């Protein structure tokens, strides 16, 4: 709060300034206060929706660019060749897994891969929830 100078006039000046501050604080309730509240919340929601859309669009664009780059670079062919070479090793691993944990269901590479991906997604969700809670 602003203050006036010191001296003989200090008391009256401070009294008036105090009264003025109080008058500013005693603002009348405007009749459309509820409408104003709704408008603010609407703007707030609009802002978040716009952000979500922007993030989604940017993610999709980035994914598309990444996919085009991947296809264009020929890395997919190299990846297929690598996968074929590792097939034998993966099969040995699966055989050993089946002896250690006989599940009674066919254990294929796809099943393990799917399980691993689901586990990673689950861990991601868990981490996101943890960060939000903290």
């Amino acid at each position: 709060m602003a203050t006036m100078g010191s001296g003989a006039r200090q008391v009256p000046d401070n009294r008036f300034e105090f009264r003025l501050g109080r008058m500013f604080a005693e603002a009348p309730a405007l009749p459309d206060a509820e409408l104003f509240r709704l408008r603010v919340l609407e703007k707030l929601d609009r802002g978040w929706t716009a952000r979500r859309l922007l993030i989604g669009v940017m993610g999709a664009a980035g994914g598309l660019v990444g996919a085009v780059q991947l296809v264009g670079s020929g890395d997919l062919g190299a990846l297929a060749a690598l996968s074929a070479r590792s097939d034998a090793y993966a099969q040995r691993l699966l055989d050993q897994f089946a002896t250690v944990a006989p599940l009674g269901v066919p254990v294929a590479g796809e099943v393990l891969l799917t399980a691993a991906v689901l586990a990673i997604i689950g861990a991601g969700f868990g981490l996101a929830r943890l960060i939000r809670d903290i």
Partner: protein
Amino acid sequence: MAMAPITRERLAGAHDLELTAQAAAGDRAAFGELVRRHGSAVRALLRRMGAEPAAADDVAQDAFLTAFERIAEFRGEGAFRAWVSRIAARAWVRRWRREAQIDVAADPGEFMPSGLDAAVTPAADTRIDLDEALKALSPAERLCVSLCYGAGLSHGEAAAALNAPLGTVKSHVKRGLDKLRQRLSPDGDDGQRSAASA
């Protein structure tokens, strides 16, 4: 850990600090309650600073959005209303300066409001309210007085917000206070009489 959201029934009775904590955790209903409580005061302050009602509402809405984004910075050392009022006042000053409605530093302070004779003190039996009294001030005086006494800025903070010399702001505040004292106290001696009788 995250707090449980306040139920709708409890919102009205919750303290501002509790509501700001909930709002900081993302509870929009809690923030809506804060807007309901303090929206009118912020809008009234902007109008008193000289904003047209539509512009005041616009700036006040943006100020509350800014407050929501920065609510984690609110530590509760002061009142929420004062905090958001300062945000709104500074936003209005930025807009005011951008639109270059008046140069605070160059404003001579000689101002004759339309429909109001600033030199005439109201009759002793008519105590006009603050909104009417502010109309007797020049735009710069009105802005400076509102910043200091409505938004709670110091003279230095007001000068920084207005990008004007400190002395100029002090002059505007002093002239504005003199005019307000004259208008809000019909006999022109508010306080002095009380001090003398004490």
